């Protein structure tokens, strides 16, 4: 059969098999050509920007730009003895040039991340810059004795490498110490592990609440006749389509101390004083669960819609108590929907920024807030990028799990 097929020849003398292969390849190439414009577009407006962010988390350009000669002179330094005369001379030259071109600001701030107080040390030297030439080392140390300490020179060497692990380590409350080992920072400087912990905790609580509230509603929607079900579905879809800002604003109006909920409860005599319901963790939970609930209900609904009621009926007819039948027969069939909904809500929740920023207090801010904070307020782009990179990695890992889950599910359905 194969041989017969191979011997078939088209009108123009080309074997049919070859022609078919060519046609298939052309078809495939056409498919790729149709995807290519979007792919390139996303590369420019999405992938490369995120690549830039990830690169900035290890990029270490400040000293290279402002103090190039010093960094070069320190390249072969053994970090055990004070640098030689030429290194000090290079520093003085660099500082003079940097001062003329006023490029010192970023480098000075970068060194201050390494040792606080370095910035003022640098400024002091710039103000009393000794002349180059013999004895420059002693002259510099005479300006401030700290220039004679190894700690400060090691900081310059660390900050002078082209790439740094400084920001990524700092984002998990670690640092490279004098000896070159990685250690955790002192407890009073540690901040970011708490922020990551809080982010995951808030996302977890929001996910559990969304599941607890979404499951019954999805079940109701899936089991009602299609008329009332469609009507109730609109109640789920309306918030889904409503602007996130509108919903957040509405929650502030409802929950604030002079707001509607407090007013109603005081009016009913339930409470005497208004409760603090917003600008704290409670407000964050209420608003986030509200915003993410449709993302839980919709996947649950689509799975439940495909579950035949016959199984539960069969279990009950065989003598199982309805609750037992529900728990042992119905719920296991919804696991795929539960997993998809929970992962989706969790993934979306860990990236939240706007809602906690508007309805949360200072202790309710998540990682995204600090990424924005370091970008806009303190202009510490390395730190912003490092926190962003870690958050991105967490998201992508969860997204990959979600994809695996969805595809294995699709395979099961196909079988």
């Amino acid at each position, binding site marked *: 059969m194969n041989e017969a097929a191979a011997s078939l020849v088209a009108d123009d003398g080309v074997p049919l098999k070859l022609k078919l292969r060519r046609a298939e390849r052309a078809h495939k190439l056409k498919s790729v050509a149709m995807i290519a414009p979007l792919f390139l577009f*996303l590369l420019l407006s999405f992938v490369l920007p995120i690549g830039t962010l990830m690169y900035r988390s290890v990029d270490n350009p400040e000293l290279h730009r402002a103090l190039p000669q010093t960094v070069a002179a320190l390249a072969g330094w053994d970090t055990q003895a004070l640098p030689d005369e030429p290194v000090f001379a290079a520093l003085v030259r660099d500082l003079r040039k940097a001062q003329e071109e006023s490029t010192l600001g970023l480098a000075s701030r970068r060194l201050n991340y390494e040792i606080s107080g370095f910035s003022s040390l640098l400024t002091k030297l710039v103000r009393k810059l000794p002349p180059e030439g013999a004895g420059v080392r002693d002259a510099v140390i005479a300006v401030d004795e700290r220039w004679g300490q190894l700690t400060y020179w090691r900081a310059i060497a660390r900050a002078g490498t082209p790439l740094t692990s400084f920001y990524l380590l700092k984002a998990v409350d670690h640092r490279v110490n004098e000896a070159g080992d990685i250690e955790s920072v002192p407890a009073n400087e540690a901040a970011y592990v708490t922020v990551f912990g809080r982010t995951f905790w808030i996302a977890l609580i929001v996910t559990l609440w969304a599941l607890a509230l979404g499951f019954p*509603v999805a079940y109701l929607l899936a089991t009602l006749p299609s008329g009332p079900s469609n009507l109730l579905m609109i109640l789920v879809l309306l918030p889904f389509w409503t602007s*996130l800002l509108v919903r957040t604003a509405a929650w502030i*109006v409802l929950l604030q101390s002079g707001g509607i909920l407090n007013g109603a409860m005081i009016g009913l005599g339930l409470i005497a004083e208004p409760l603090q319901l917003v600008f704290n963790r409670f407000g964050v939970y209420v608003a986030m669960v509200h915003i993410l609930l449709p993302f839980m209900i919709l996947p649950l609904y689509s799975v439940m819609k495909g579950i035949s009621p016959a199984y539960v009926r069969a279990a009950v007819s065989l003598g199982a108590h309805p609750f037992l039948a529900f728990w042992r027969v119905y719920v296991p069939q919804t696991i795929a929907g539960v997993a998809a909904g929970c992962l989706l809500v969790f993934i979306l929740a860990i990236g939240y920024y706007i809602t906690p920023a508007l309805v949360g207090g200072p202790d309710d801010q998540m990682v995204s807030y600090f990424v924005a904070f370091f970008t806009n307020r303190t202009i510490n782009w390395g730190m912003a990028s490092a926190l962003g990179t870690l958050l991105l990695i967490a998201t992508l890992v969860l997204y990959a799990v979600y994809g695996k889950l969805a595809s294995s599910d699709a395979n099961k359905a196909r079988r």
Partner: protein
Amino acid sequence: MQPYATPIERVWFYAFRVICGLVLLYLVLPILVIVPLSFNSSSFLTYPLSGFSMRWYEEFFGSHEWMMALKNSLIVAPSATVLATCFGTLAAVGLTRGEFPGKALVMAILISPMVVPIVIVAVGLYFFFADIGLLNTYAGLILAHAALGVPFVIITVTATLQGYNTNLSRAAASLGAPPLTVFFKVVLPLILPGVVSGALFAFATSFDEVVVTLFLASPTQRTLPQQMFGGIRENISPTIACVATIMIVLSVLMLLTMEWLRRRNEKLRGAG
């Protein structure tokens, strides 16, 4: 509920309905509550309402800042929608034409703008656009918003194409129609509901986008959500309630359009 249900089952049945009712109330209450406040004559956002008034709407439409924000949103959102819909539809058609190596990965990348935390996208774009000179430009803002809308177009159009019968294209081609004619005369009319839903999603995404805009837009490019964000952060005024109401009306319109498209699609399928 079966007539032979035990009392516990009866109680449970009603309790279940009450719980669902409360959850549904929780979902729609905030949206319903803010609408009447925009027509309230008092400047306090509390009930009971003190009287009907259109003054906040007059304030909104008379305010230079709000009108500028509205104008910017109406420049950016439709442009981003057109970009996302054209690129997205073309790619979705390519994706459903058959298998090729790395298809799953390509699909994952095309969908990823939906899951990557928005702040990361915003900061990345801020760095990147600063390097290539697209910061504080309409072009940059439109490109960014289009990227965020792409996944929705891909998802809805691929879903619609799954129900498309490829033999129709083959029939058209065998009758001599060139590929472009096949696409515009046969494929597009049939998948239009999916394309329009994707476009609506993309529009809603851009029209509601605030984080990327905060990072990329210059003060004169303030969009409606950005103006609103500032307003909510400082002090929620009834003008905010009135903007919220306008946006809710818009969402209702989009929701109804989607429902209509879905039913039409179902009917077409049912007839076919």
